[in-house]
């Protein structure tokens, strides 16, 4: 701590008192000397005489509180002459924490010194922690921004990569199929050889549809806009697209009234297409598929809550009379490459419903299903009628 007094005897007595109480004490004989020392050294407390030749105590205090380095150091004024209230007030307003008049009680002074220096240490510690924290927050924020940028780049690269990879995989595959067909047509018409070639061709075809599905999955990461569209229109489009397989299987489709909602039409078409074509594909042997589509409203994003007259969400039900599935596999059917059936029973790549899930999530909705083995399945899509923000770019 620093004691500032122009009188040697005052300095000496105070210094001795403090040193006896194990304080580390420095002294200055004038305001100017004090300021120089404050700039050079660290002090926890300054005891300042008010009346000094040259710079007086108030000026010194104002200077001390003006420096950022020393502004928090507590200053105790000590005066024998200026004991009037207005001097005391001036002392406080110039930056002092206390104003002690002489003669003083040494014990009380020591207690005050102890309190103030403790306070100063704690404040300093807190300030250090705060600035440390601020710095850390800044560092972390910068790191996060950087990591985010990297993620965006690598995500874009990954999409590009998936696209190019799938695209370039098509080329050689197309040749495998084409040349196998030529070999089969020209050289191997019957027998075991022809069977093997058929297997090559059908495997290659399967790989081709796998690549096509992967391609459309990677295209999903591009973000178009939501537009208010009639879901009936989407359902109708899908039925038209699936006309051929509907005719072939003798499927019956009943589409009830569906509302309009803020959707990405192309993607929603894909949702309907995937679910309806599944309903057709997973039909019971010898039983023509019957598919019913209807909707209701709900206030919560839930497949369970009761329907209401007018809610924030619409629920679309797509119900079939097919083979169904056990609900213990509910999570699995929406996961990429998960199949519940052998390839020889039902064809497919196992990507269709994962595309559905991804699209519905992008629409801030949810998709689930109710079913039991052999009892048909009902897929339930819950969609907000109004979208409040643009579609979020998907980070994988």
């Amino acid at each position, binding site marked *: 701590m620093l004691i500032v007094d122009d009188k040697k005897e005052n300095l000496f007595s105070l210094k001795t008192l403090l040193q006896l109480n194990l304080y580390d004490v420095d002294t200055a004989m004038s305001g100017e000397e004090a300021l120089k020392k404050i700039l050079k050294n660290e002090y926890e407390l300054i005891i300042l005489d008010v009346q000094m030749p040259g710079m007086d105590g108030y000026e010194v205090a104002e200077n001390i509180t003006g420096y950022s380095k020393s502004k928090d150091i507590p200053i105790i004024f000590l005066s024998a002459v200026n004991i009037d209230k207005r001097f005391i007030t001036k002392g406080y307003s110039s930056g002092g924490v206390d104003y002690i008049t002489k003669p003083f009680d040494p014990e009380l002074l020591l207690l005050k010194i102890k309190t103030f220096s403790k306070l100063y240490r704690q404040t300093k510690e807190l300030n250090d922690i705060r600035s440390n924290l601020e710095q850390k927050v800044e560092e972390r924020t910068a790191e996060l921004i950087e990591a985010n940028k990297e993620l965006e780049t690598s995500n874009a690269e990954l999409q590009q990569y998936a696209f190019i990879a799938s*695209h370039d995989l*098509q080329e050689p595959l197309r040749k495998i199929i*084409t*040349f196998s067909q*030529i070999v089969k047509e020209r050289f191997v018409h019957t027998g075991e050889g022809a069977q093997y070639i058929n297997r090559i061709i059908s495997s*290659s*075809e399967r790989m081709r549809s796998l690549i096509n599905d992967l391609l459309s999955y990677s295209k999903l990461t591009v973000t178009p806009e939501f537009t208010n569209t009639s879901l009936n229109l989407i359902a109708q489009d899908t039925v038209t697209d699936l006309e051929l397989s509907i005719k072939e299987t003798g499927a019956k489709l009943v589409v009830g009234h569906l509302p309009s909602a803020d959707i990405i039409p192309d993607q929603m078409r894909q949702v309907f297409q995937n679910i309806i074509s599944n309903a057709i594909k997973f039909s019971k042997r010898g039983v023509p598929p019957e598919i019913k589509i209807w909707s209701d409203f709900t206030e919560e994003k839930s497949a369970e809550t009761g329907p209401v007259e007018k809610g924030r969400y619409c629920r679309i039900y797509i119900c079939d009379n097919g083979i169904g599935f056990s609900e213990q596999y509910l999570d699995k059917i929406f996961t990429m490459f998960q199949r519940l059936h052998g390839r020889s029973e039902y064809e497919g790549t196992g990507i269709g419903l994962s595309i559905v899930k991804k699209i519905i999530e992008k629409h801030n909705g949810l998709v689930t299903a109710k079913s039991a083995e052999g009892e048909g399945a009902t897929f339930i899509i819950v969609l907000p009628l109004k979208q409040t923000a643009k579609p979020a770019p998907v980070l994988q």
Partner: protein
Amino acid sequence: MSDYTRFFLVDDDIDDISVFKEVLKEVDPSIELVSAGDGQEALKFLKHLRDDYPDVIFLDLNMPRMGGKECLAEIKKDAALQHIPVIMYTTSSQSKDIEETMLKGAMCFITKPTNLKELKNILHSISRNVHSNLEKCLRTLSNTSNTFIVC
């Protein structure tokens, strides 16, 4: 005008060229097939012709030196060549490739079929209609074929 039909295939893939040639021979052996390995070679060939232009050009997209898009633009810029129908014939089925080439004046965009019968079917229709109403034939084809065709 020459009295025989001539197709011009621009593709850097020799396997695809050979399959195309074989299938075309089966469809109509009288049709002559000329091929070029990239856009530059194709333009060089076309610009040397006087009046015996091919009846239709099949143009691949990804080729070395000059790709299909650039080659298509050059053909449509040339007063002597711009009347020749250009059919994009490629592995791609990307919407931006389709839009871009259709805007640049391609008549049609065909994704190379894997199935030989499909290719045969396509070449059959095109060879039958190349001197009458090719565009209409391609539009019909795009509705009936399993191959990805955009007109």
